[in-house]
Every structure is written in structure tokens, then in C-alpha cells.
């Protein structure tokens, strides 16, 4: 079986089947690039992902493995039928998979899924973030994301006034 070595930013190597790896758009491209540039068709590709650390990369690969038989979702599914992709793809397994993660890990996972072009994973993680934001006040959002408002002086008040161009008052 054709394998590919995927190496995380902190140097951990994951040996996965090419078939699985190719479900990530990014890895697929990398493998094909490697094939074209390599004389030896038997050579094992090695792909270094400098932006993703081992813990996150492992999660992405776990998710891919779990979903290896899912049909690949067309990129514009959302627009076509008005249904969220996330609902289509989200299973009990996904919920259990995401449950123990704090928002920080989820954000990293979003970043990784985006970088590796794994649409299904990106959808469910975005959906999770969305569920943590919807209905929250501005302060609660800042707390959840550990963000500090960078507005100084009257800047927040200014922004509030700008919004009155188009919000009910």
C-alpha cells in the first residue's frame, strides 16, 4: 500500500496511506507534486506541515480516518440546497470527537482544516465556534475567545454610533 510520511511542525512523523491523505486537498496536491518531481515512482513522499503541531495533526488524521468513506462534499453545497454542510456531516462520533476540546484547540483545528483543505472538518469546527458565539453578548464573546477589546477612548462608542446608520434605535 502506498504510504506517505506527514511531518508536523514539531517534528512528529505520521505514516498514513496515500489514499487517506488525499482526502485532504492540500496533501493531495503535495503528493501529486512529489510524484511529478520524483523519478522513482516507488519512493515514499514526505510532506512537512510547518504550521500544524503533532497534537492537532493527529486530530485531523483521526477525523479523516473516521470519515474516509464519506462522499466528498462539493464546495458550494451550502449555496445550492440551502442546507448547512455541518448538519449533513455531523455524527455522534463528531460530537464526541469535539466534546473534550476547548475553544483554543478548536481554533487550531479550524486553522489546520483550512490549511489542509478538509472541508467537512472545517464545517463542523466552524459550526461549533458559531454555537459558542450565537446569542452571546459582546463581553461574553470576548471572554470566550480570551480577546481583549482593543478599543481605546471613545472608539467603542464611535463604533456604536456607526452602527446606528443601519440598526434600529
Amino acid at each position, binding site marked *: 500500500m502506498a504510504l506517505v510520511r506527514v511531518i508536523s511542525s514539531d517534528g512528529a512523523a505520521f505514516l498514513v496511506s496515500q489514499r487517506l491523505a488525499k482526502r485532504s486537498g492540500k496533501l493531495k496536491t503535495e503528493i501529486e507534486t512529489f510524484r511529478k518531481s520524483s523519478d522513482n515512482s516507488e519512493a515514499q513522499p514526505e510532506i512537512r506541515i510547518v504550521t500544524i503541531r503533532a497534537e492537532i495533526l493527529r486530530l485531523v488524521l483521526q477525523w479523516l480516518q473516521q470519515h474516509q468513506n464519506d462522499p466528498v462534499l462539493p464546495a458550494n453545497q451550502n449555496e445550492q440546497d440551502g442546507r448547512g454542510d455541518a448538519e449533513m456531516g455531523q455524527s455522534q462520533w463528531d460530537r464526541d470527537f469535539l466534546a473534550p476540546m476547548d475553544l483554543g484547540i478548536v481554533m487550531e483545528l*479550524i*486553522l489546520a482544516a483550512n490549511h489542509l483543505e478538509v472541508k467537512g472538518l472545517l464545517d463542523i469546527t466552524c459550526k461549533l465556534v458559531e454555537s459558542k458565539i450565537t446569542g452571546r453578548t459582546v463581553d461574553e464573546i470576548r471572554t470566550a475567545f480570551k480577546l481583549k477589546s*482593543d478599543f481605546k477612548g471613545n472608539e467603542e462608542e464611535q463604533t456604536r454610533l*456607526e452602527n446606528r446608520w443601519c440598526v434600529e434605535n
Partner: protein
Amino acid sequence: MDLNGTSKEVEEEVSQHYVSPPVTPEIAPTPPPPHLSGETCWDNLPPEVQEMVVEKLGDKPKLLRYRLVSSSWKKTVDMILERQFLSVWTEWEPFEQYPYKMNMHDYYDYICGYDELEDDDRNPTTGVILARAIIAGVPRLRPIWSHFAEHDRKANLIPSFDHHLPAVHNPKLGSPIPSNCLRIRFNDKIWPEIKRFERSRRAKTLADFVVKYDHCFSYLRALLLTDIEISPSNLATILGKLTNLRALTLEDTLLHVEPETQEENAVLPLHSNLSHLRIISTNSSASQLILKAYHEQVISLETNCWVPLFSKPYGNLKRLKLITNLKPDAQFRQGEENPFPALKYLSIIIHEGHVFEWDELSRTIDACPRTLINLYLDIEPRWETEEDKIRQLAMSQVTIPNVKTLGIFLPTIPQHAECLRRLILPKFPSVQQINLISGSWGCRSAIHGKSENETEVYDREEVIRRLNAAKIVAKNVERMVLELQFYATVCPKLEYIVII
């Protein structure tokens, strides 16, 4: 590899899949950088991912609230709203946009309006007009502009408006106009006692205002001017400050050259990004001034005022939508050069009451640029009443080779359906989808049994079923059905017939 993943080969290999933990790290793991330690890193997400998350959070009023989270959230929200609003110009929509179809209240922030006033504010005896801002999504109004009748020369933008815009530029906060789209509307026309000089003075006030707050208006990506009378120089002043403008709409807006000034030669500023224009119900000097300045760069153009406009080259124009009372065939043929070398989408909507002879329809089609891939002709040909004369109709052999989607009249009797097949369809050998336009016959509701706004896609059988159900072909149903089925023999690539 087949990513749909159900082939036999894949199934055989599934069992062999494995993901190893970090087995034999060849490089010693280095400590992860601090921002990856599981701490939240919203600001590390790429802007497109931030947009993707935030966009799912709700409609405009909700999104506006998130502008208050931080300056980066503010910019993200503005980007989302900007993209949503710009799609009004950038996405192809061949139909005529009736006011009810595109509810402006949902789409734009804009400044003035008389007809939105509550009755109390309309009372002309008080001599006061309080025009108010429409609130996007919620048509609640707020005083923005006050006009005191002629005796008060201080009529001006009232102070509360100023307070909404920062006096100085703050790069950290970015745009002070949510969505970077703005609609400005004076409603003088329905207030006839406002004299001409008063109207142009208002336009001057607006121009001064834009100059004073140019640090705010330079963010604007789209501007709509509605119900305004303005001089060329004031228009040039306003546009000159909108350095990032991509889309411009002039609607019911008149351009007036003041007799005492020498501004016939006013030139509009260069705007390299301005590429989407809608010029609706303006006087011809307004459309001429705009198109003279931007004809070479415009990518999409919608206009109902076009007689003298197309003698110039429109080298980048991809989408053209004409709503007109005139017959377009002569216009297209003026001059030897095709003024639209890049045109892909063309929509011609002829208003009711202007009937085409068949040879005019033929000439119009023949004059279409060969580059078209999408053609929408809302034109009703004049029908002969005698079947023999219908048989004798003929058209040229000219073809428009690349058209894939064709919008054309909905035939309502078999003879007309036969004409469509025999005369028009052979001109479009690559057509994949035929949209039969039912709107102008008023039979849309008869066919759909529902509101006019809805567009539905059916396969051929469904179309036939609907035609039957609507009884618009009460006689000769079988022949009509037969004709529609013949369409596929004329157009080998035909996949859909759609009633719109």
C-alpha cells in the same frame, strides 16, 4: 483518485488504513510556539476563515453587533457585508429588477428619503421636511436631513448626522460606514415646491459633506445616488473622494448644467477599480458623462438609457443588461466594429407595448456578439394570426455559436413553439438550457399558481405537465408537447427547458 470513495478498490484497502502515533520521530520535537499551546488564537485565523465563521452568525443586525468586539472583528463584519452587497452588482441577474424584487431597505444604508416619512413629518404647512435614514433590514427612520423652506437659508445636514462619522481618520477602526456601501437619496421630485436652486444647493451641500469627511467616504466600495439633481462638477467632486469605489448606481438622478457656470466640460475622476455600473432612469447627459469616463473599464453595465452610448468601445464589458423601449437591432449594428469584444452575458428587456416584427428579432439576434454564452431576450414577436403566414416566416442562417443558456419567449400555442424550434433554436447550436420567459404574458401565475418572484427549474416532463395543467394550450396540447420534445433534436446539448 475517485474521491467519492465508494469504488470497490477503496473498500478493499480500507482495512489496511492506519494512522500511527508519532512513531519514530526523526527530528526531536521542539516545544510548540506559545500561540499554539491550546490558547485561543482568533487573531491567528486567516481573514477568510474569520469571515467564514462570523458570516454564519446571523443577519445584518446581528452582525453589526459583532463590530463591537474588537477592531479586527469590526473589519471582518464590514468585509462580509461589503461582499454581500456588492453581489447585487457583480452577480448576473438577467431579469428586470422590480422594486419589490430587490428590497432596498434590506440592502443599503442610506441617507435621505421623503416617502418613508411618517405622515406627521410630511405636513407641508409646517414648512419642515425631515428626511430620514432608512435602517437596513428594519425600515425605521431617523432624522438626518432637515430642510426648512425657502425662508430659512440654513438648511443643512443636521448635526446628529455629523456625530456618526469621526472627525479624523482612525486607521485602526477602519471604515466608519458599515458594509462600505451607501445609498444617498433626496426625494425632491415629490416635493415640487423645492425650487431648482434649492435642489442644486442640496447637491452642493452633499458634495461639501463628502469632501469634509473624505477620510470616511474613501472606504466606500459602492454608492447609490437616487432621486438627486446634481451638477457635473458636484458629481465629479463626490466621485473624486470615493477612491475605492467599485460599483456605482445612478437611479432617477438628473444631471443639470447650471447655465451660469462653465461646466459642460466637467470630467469625472479616474477610478481604476470602478467596474460595475447601473444607470437607470437618468437623463442622457448623466449617462453620457458616466460612460464617457468609464466605458473602457466597466465590467458590468445595466442601463435603460442607451441610445447614443454604444458608439464607444467597451473592451472589458462582460455583462450588459438593457431595459429599453427601443429596438436594439439598429443600435448594435451602428459602426463596423463590435463595441463589445468581451461580452459574455447579454439581457435585453423590451418594455410592454413595443412589438417586434420577426425580421427585427432576427436582426437583433444576428447582431449579438459571437462571444456570448448567456443570452436573455425578453422580447415578444408579433404573431401572424394565419397559420399559413406563420409557416412562411424565415430567418437568417447566422448562428451565435457559444450560447449555453438562452432566455426566450414562452410559446403559448403549438404554431409558436414550432416557430421557435424552426427559426430561432438553430441559431444556438450549443445551447444547454432554454429559459422560456413567461413573465411578460402574465401567465407566470397561471403556470406556477404562485407568486411572480419565484423561479423554478423543471425537467422537460415537468414543463409539459405544467403547461398541461395551466391549460394555456387548451387546444392542441399533444402538438405543443411534441414541439417541446423536438427541441432536443435541434439542440443536441439541450439538458433543461425552464419556465421562468
